[in-house]
């Protein structure tokens, strides 16, 4: 009998194959930026060698927020309600601080209905990664404008979109967020590196990822009509027809330089990677870089701000080393004597 050669499966530092980090089949539109981010999550978690079941996948509601079903199938997760993932994660985090909390949200979820919770999670420095899959639109409800920056630089604006977009990175830096980065769904290498760093960071790590919506985010006014499509056969199309796109090509921009990326709708977007001179501990410098990029109609990517010293919420709370969820009745229920003492003190 011939010896069967086992197929060589690459393992990570904790001897897990990459398969242990994958999830279900995506039901997003072909070409959606969000799927690229899901792939990065799989890679980064595998690279980092975290036990899959020690990760908690959290999300709100939206196309982006559906993605936890498409990665880390061995992790528990919670696809919560629209815009309120931060609070649910906060509650989970403080009772089980030993998990790695990986939150995924959309720009609608984060910058509109959820902005209050996002701000307060940042303020508390909850130990979690928070990825905004930012496409400038409400994907799942079919293309209404969201409150964040446009992905396409030449987007024509309807009256509503005159409204100044919210730059979540600038907001976070201003709030003293302990880790703030921006990236692009098509920059796999950069994003993987950022995500790995974020997962290792103790504290709140915001990664705002530009993640084009191939179905609704395009230059035309009629983008809000579900039937609109973007190739030159546009007018031949039917109600409810969503063309298939391939994912955007990988773009990696060296530190300090920029690249123009062509989007599906034909527009381009300028990505600049922040230079190596950038002092990530200087909030004002980071804000200034963002304001400048805004004025120049480009997006600056990379780690923008970092503060490794800020204690995270679980530390502030002075919790016992054992996660609260692992404590038994002996620690959770005071003794009968204690009750007697309490009552005695009341009797005065």
């Amino acid at each position: 009998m011939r010896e069967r050669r086992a197929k060589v499966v690459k393992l990570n530092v904790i001897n897990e194959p990459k398969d242990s980090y994958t999830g279900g089949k995506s039901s997003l539109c072909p070409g959606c930026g969000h799927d690229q981010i899901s792939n990065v999550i799989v890679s980064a978690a595998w690279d980092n060698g975290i036990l899959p079941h020690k990760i908690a996948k959290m999300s709100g509601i939206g196309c982006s927020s559906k993605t936890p079903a498409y990665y880390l199938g061995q992790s528990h997760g919670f696809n919560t309600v629209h815009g309120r993932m931060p609070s649910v994660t906060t509650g989970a985090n403080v009772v089980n601080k030993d998990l790695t909390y990986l939150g995924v949200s959309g720009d609608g979820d984060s910058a509109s209905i959820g902005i209050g919770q996002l701000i307060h999670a940042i303020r508390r420095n909850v130990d979690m990664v928070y990825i905004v899959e930012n496409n400038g639109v409400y994907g799942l409800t079919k293309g209404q404008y969201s409150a964040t920056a446009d992905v396409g630089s030449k987007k024509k604006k309807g009256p509503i979109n005159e409204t100044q977009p919210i730059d979540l990175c600038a907001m976070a830096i201003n709030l003293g967020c302990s880790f703030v980065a921006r990236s692009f769904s098509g920059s796999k290498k950069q994003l993987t590196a950022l995500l790995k760093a974020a997962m290792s960071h103790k504290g709140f790590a915001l990664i705002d990822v530009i993640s084009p919506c191939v179905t609704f985010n395009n230059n035309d006014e009629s983008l809000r009509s579900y039937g609109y499509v973007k190739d030159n056969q546009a007018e031949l199309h039917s109600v409810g027809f969503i063309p298939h796109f391939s994912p955007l090509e990988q773009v990696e921009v060296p530190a300090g330089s920029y690249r123009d990326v062509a989007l599906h709708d034909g527009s381009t977007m300028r990505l600049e990677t922040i230079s190596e001179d950038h002092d990530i501990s200087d909030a004002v410098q980071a804000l200034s870089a963002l304001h400048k990029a805004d004025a120049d109609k480009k997006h600056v990517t990379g780690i923008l701000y970092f503060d490794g010293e800020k204690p995270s919420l679980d530390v502030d709370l002075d919790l016992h080393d054992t996660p609260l969820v692992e404590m038994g009745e002996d620690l959770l229920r005071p003794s009968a004597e204690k009750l007697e003492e309490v009552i005695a003190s009341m009797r005065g």
Partner: protein
Amino acid sequence: MTFDSNNFKGLSLSQDPQWQPPQEGGRRSWRNKMSKIVNDFTINIATANGTGSQSANLILLQTLFDMGIPVSGKNLFPSNISGLPTWYIVRLSDKGYQAPGDRTHIQILVNPATWEDDLASLEPGTVVIWNTDSKMEMNREDVVSYPVPMTKIARGLNPKLARMIANVVYVGVLAELLGMDQEVLEESIAKQFGGKAKAIELNAEAARLGRSYCAEELTKQDDYFVEARDIEEGGFFIEGNEAIALGSIFGGIQMLGWYPITPSSSVCEGIISWLPKLRTHEGKATYAIIQAEDELAAAGMIIGAGWAGARGLTATSGPGISLMQEFIGLAYFAEVPCVFWDINRVGPSTGLPTRTQQGDLAMLYESSHGDTKHIVFMPGTVEECFEFGWKVFDASEKFQTPVFGFSDLDLGMNKWACRGFEYPDEPMDRGKLVLTQEQMDSIENYGRYRDVDGDGIPYRTLPGSGLDPILYRGTGHDEDGTYSEKPEVYYKLMQRLGRKIDGARDYLPAPIIKEDEKQEIGVIFYGSMENSIKEIEDIVEEMTGKFISTCRVRALPLHSEVEAFIEKHETVIVAEINRDAQLYGIMRKEYPVHLLNKLLSVAYSDGMPPRGRLYAERIVQALEEAKI
């Protein structure tokens, strides 16, 4: 290990857990029967969303409609954007039945993802038109099989758009098979694509190719046919939500504050698209539209508008209603007019965002903490969506209170045949507004919250008018609006609010009652159940030999005629689309006990539009149980 994947397989109409297949003996042998079945069958089209099947299905619907055939279409779509299973159910019924029927007679199979389950769930004898290019097998012997190379035909026309055009091919096949008028079909295609000549031509050609494929390659082996009928003049298709949008505009909407959520978004998007055409003055807007940051803000905005003296509206669905609870209480207590449309989808929580239900009614009626009670309008037809679309504003300003419109995904997002809309037959009722000093002087002892007329409805002035300013508030206040914690002041205020809303009862739309002479069995229902009631009636009659009277409730608090209806009948069933019998519950709470003795409930909800047989059987069962 479990996580969600795309398992949407096998949604079929006969999946009610209570449903039983007909007994062996009862099964007719389809091959022997040669009688024609005309205009009385159901076509189920299984595709995936994002493929463009929606427009093919609408062409089919329009063609049948324009031939004068009573027809309805239901779109069962998933909660995502592209690639997941979608079913479209076309019901032809000379009797005018609009519910999805008991079974599928003709199945179009295009989607490999649900292929096997769809096929497995068919009854013997079903006609199956299937795409031979889908690489799936047709492994049933007991169905009438029509294989069609849909994709190949489409690819011949335009390779890039084959995925999309393949849908029109099956419309062509159906046209030939059932005997649809080619001219009408082509007109429908032209309607569907507006003025776009190239698209019209492409699609018409695809339909023709489907048609000739059928004529040339297939032999008719089934009994289903369509026949043109006299056409009711001037009818058209419209979604309930668009009808509400138009009604709101003819109701003088001044401010729309909204946040997107299925299935309500199209109310707002309808308003947004029609307003510029209908309400521009000297090139400027006579309305304000704001997409809010969330539902709380949308509610706040329309309350602000109402406080300032304008007609504000928001539309949302269950999760939004939950989020608006605090603000709704403010509007109730401070007596600020504003309009909330709830287009119900399946709850609780995020639930099934693209499925239908009447699950929010109880919540609307008693929205917010503390003692509250609200006015709710419940249209059952697209015509009423338009009518109540403007009437809600009058009610809200008349009673100075938040008013709800209540519809659902079924009524709101499907296209329904419509006879037309009646122009409002009354001028706008702005309620007890004091706009001038003269008016003010004529009111004895004015106070913002004083019940001058004894109907519980006070007068009000507007900001900016300079007349009797007050600080509105959600805290306790006396008749002048001054803060007060006094027990008797609070008690009196709450009693007046109670009387005010109670007094709206008979002002609100009366129920639509169809009475059978014998007045034995009554069925009370509301909203989109209107589309199933005729079939329910007929099946109950068929099963029991008894005729039923029906009473369609159209508003809360309940009109006195509803009580009279119950009074007159021996037994009355309240039929609704939810688990907890919400309208029945309201009646149990409010009606005299002697009426409750004859009140029975049939409440059922699984996300599907109400099927006639299912409700009929449950009604009969309830009647039988009640007799024991």
